[in-house]
Structure formats: structure tokens, C-alpha cells
């Protein structure tokens, strides 16, 4: 089920939504919210193979080199899996913070990988805009899923119990 959700999201992200040129990274990077949430959630595991396949399809649809989005999605999946293994998020804010770190790591890696591919330093601003947008939009995806994520209901920052 998680794999199907990811596949549908990849197709939706490739559809022409008429975003401005400066937001060229936003749609692919929004998918990392989904990879993060589906990896951290408690009910069904997201297989690494599905994450890789989702990234590859994204690569094909965005006409980029094969393996680019696959590597970024895998990195997000790995970081989310490590987080899930080490810590149980009790509050939504804590999870949001963890995602912010993951999103920044993914965007910095994406920028580095693209710069390596072209053998020149590429513009970092679209990547920054995309990661900021992903962090800002995280609650839209994660808040309705807070029960599945194992969060206590109606807590954002309620302080330590």
C-alpha cells in the first residue's frame, strides 16, 4: 500500500502544475515529505526497493540522469529509518524538527550531487526554496497522519511530561 501511495505521488509530481521557474525543485522535493512520513509511520513498512523505484521513475519523468532522485529518496528513507529506530516521537514538533534536518540534508546532498554531475557549482537557491517549502508544508501531510505516526493526539509542543 505504501509503495502504491508513493508511486501515485511521483506521477502527480510530474504533472505540469505551472509553477514558476524559481520553484523548479519544489515538486520533486515535496515527495521527500511522503518518503519520510511513510518510513516513520508505524503500520506498514515502506520497502527500500519501492523508494528506489519511485526515485527512478521520478528521474525518468523529470528527464534527469537516472539515479539522482533515487539516491536522494534513499537518503531520506535511511535518515527517517534511523530516526525511527532511535527515537519515538511523542510530539508533532519533534517530528517536524527531525524532518527539517532530513530535508536540509537531502537538499544539500542533491545540490552536491548535481554539482558533481555537471563538474561545476550549480545555483543553490532553487534547492533552498524547495527545502524551505517542503519543511513549511510538512504538517499538511503529517498532521492528518499523526495517529499512524504514533504521536499522542492534539500535541504540537506540549512540553515534557
Amino acid at each position, binding site marked *: 500500500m505504501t509503495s502504491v501511495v508513493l508511486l501515485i505521488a511521483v*506521477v*502527480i509530481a*510530474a*504533472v*505540469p*502544475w*505551472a*509553477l*514558476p*521557474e*524559481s*520553484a*523548479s*525543485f*519544489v*515538486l*520533486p522535493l515535496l515527495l521527500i515529505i511522503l518518503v519520510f512520513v511513510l518510513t516513520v509511520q*508505524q503500520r506498514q*513498512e515502506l520497502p*527500500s*526497493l519501492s*523508494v*528506489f523505484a519511485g*526515485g*527512478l*521513475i521520478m528521474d*525518468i*519523468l*523529470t*528527464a*534527469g*540522469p*537516472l*539515479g*539522482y*532522485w*533515487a*539516491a536522494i529518496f*534513499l537518503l531520506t528513507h*535511511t535518515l527517517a*529509518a534511523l530516526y*525511527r*529506530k532511535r527515537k*519515538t516521537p*511523542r510530539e508533532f514538533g519533534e517530528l517536524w524538527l527531525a524532518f527539517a534536518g532530513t530535508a536540509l540534508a537531502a537538499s544539500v546532498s*542533491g*545540490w552536491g*550531487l*548535481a554539482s558533481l*554531475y*555537471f563538474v561545476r557549482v*550549480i*545555483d543553490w537557491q*532553487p*534547492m533552498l526554496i524547495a527545502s524551505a517549502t517542503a519543511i513549511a508544508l510538512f504538517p499538511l501531510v503529517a498532521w492528518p497522519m499523526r495517529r499512524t505516526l*504514533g504521536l*499522542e493526539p492534539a500535541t504540537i509542543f506540549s512540553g515534557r511530561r
Partner: protein
Amino acid sequence: MRSMNAAYQRQRRKRPSMGGWLLFALYFASLVLLVFSRLENDQIREVRGLFTDLISPVLHAASQPAIYARRSKEQLGDYLDLFEELDRLKEENQKLKIWAWRAQRMERRLEHMNALLNAVEETALKYASGHVIADARGPFAKSVLINLGRKQGVRNGYAVVDGDGLIGRVVHSGDTASRAILVNDLNSRIPVVVGPAAVRAVLVGDNTDEPRLEFLPNSAAVYEGDTVSTSGHGGLLPRGLQIGVISRSGKPHRVRTHAALGELEYVSVLFYDSPVVAAQEAPSVAPKPVASKKPSAGKRRKAANLQNKHVKAGEKVQAR
């Protein structure tokens, strides 16, 4: 609630690890694919084309809500500016009437001149129209996927335009869908002419909003607002296709395209068969295979008689 969390923790600990080896293999595969893509491996290109063809019906269906949403947004904007728009259209209509009159006069003059010079008329370009079903965003490419392919006669190298001008050219034509790189793509190089003096240059994409002009002569006088159109040099694109205007003069000169490259919806592919394209690819619509069976002696005789009849009929017509 605490007991619920403890249950979750126990459940998580029971889960097997995320498969370290598999993950390592997938990372490795990603890097290998990246390297092969960098080396522009032909097989990777083929697989990509095949997959694009396979997924194009899904993308076509998925793009409908996006198109509907965009149209609704545009319509809402139109309703809000209805009276302002009406005034603007009236003014534009007046201007267009004057232009129509001028165009008719020019057409008559052109016909007269052609008749005097006995000039060969340029054949009108054929085209097919479709819509954008996916757009590629990211650091690597600025391209769109169009729902027109080889079945509709589209071939690699064909120019793609929208109502405002040239937007790019086809780089991969599948059976039912084609990918076109936009003029601002990193790999796009288009020979152009600039301004009223028709100064030759090359429009180079660099993945920014506005492509730049290169190979301009040092003494070239080009200014902001000068029009940029295809020169037709190299034979790949027809000449005279409008691209945009110079938005920033200086080094480098930047060109603002007439077409909104981020908001493409309906596009047309121009079937311009230059010698370059013809040499690159076989004809898009292959002739039907002829039956390999050898005809019998009787059939051969019949066919020869029929051919003779046709030749004689032709000779009669010529004699008349």
C-alpha cells in the same frame, strides 16, 4: 497512552533491520546509473524512451485535473477583470483591423512581386498540436513531455511552438509521446538573428529563466527590446520563428522568451524536414511491407499488360 507507546517501541524492535545490504546495493546502483547517464549510454536512453511511452497514457490522464485547475484559475482571473479586459480587447480589435488591412495589401503586393520574379513559393509548414502531459523540473533539464509521437509523424529535431513562439525542439520521439527540450535547457543551442539588422548569434540555454546570446560579433549593435528569431542556419529549424526579445543587454545579453516556458499547455510540433533531420532518421511512417511471395507467371503477364495499358494511356494524354 504510555502503554500504547511502549507497545509501539516493542513492535519496532521486533521488526527486522532495514536490510543494510539491500540498501547498500541500491545506493551503489544509483551511483552506477548516474555515471552511465553522464556517459550518455545508449541503452539507458532506450530504456528511458520505452518507459516514457509506457507511462504516457497514465500521465495524460493524470494531467487532466492539473489542466482543469489551471483553466479554472485563469477563468476566475478573467471574471474578476471582465470590464478591464473588455476595454483592452476593444482597443486591440481596432489595432488588429488596421493590421488586417495592411496585411491584405502586403499580400497582394507580394503576389504581384512573385509573379514578376517568377519566384518559387515556400511550402506551408505542416504541424500537429497536442498538450503537455509532464514537465521536467530540476537541475538537469528543462523539458516537457508532449502527447504526440511517431504515430502522429513527430520526429527528433522538429521545432515545438506555442501561440507565442518557439519553445524548443523534440529530442526523443516515442510512439505516442515525445520529449522536447526547452530553449532555456542547458543543452539547447539555437542559431538566431537579432534585431532589425539581423545580427547572427546563438541562443544558449543555461537552465535559467532567460537564455543568453553567444557568438555575437564584437561590433554588433543590439539593444534591449530587439527581437530574436530563428535564423534557419544549420538547417535544423525553419527560419523566422519568433523566440523573444533582449531583456538585458550587456555581457551576456539575455533573452526573455515570448512563451511562458513554465506554464505551457497546448503546443504544436512543426513538421520541418531539413536535410539534417532526414539524414538522422528513417521516415516516420514506414511504407507497408511488400509481400515477399513471388507472383506466378500468369500474374506477372497480367501486371505487364496493365502497365503497358497505363503507358499507352499516358502517351495519348500527352499527344492531346
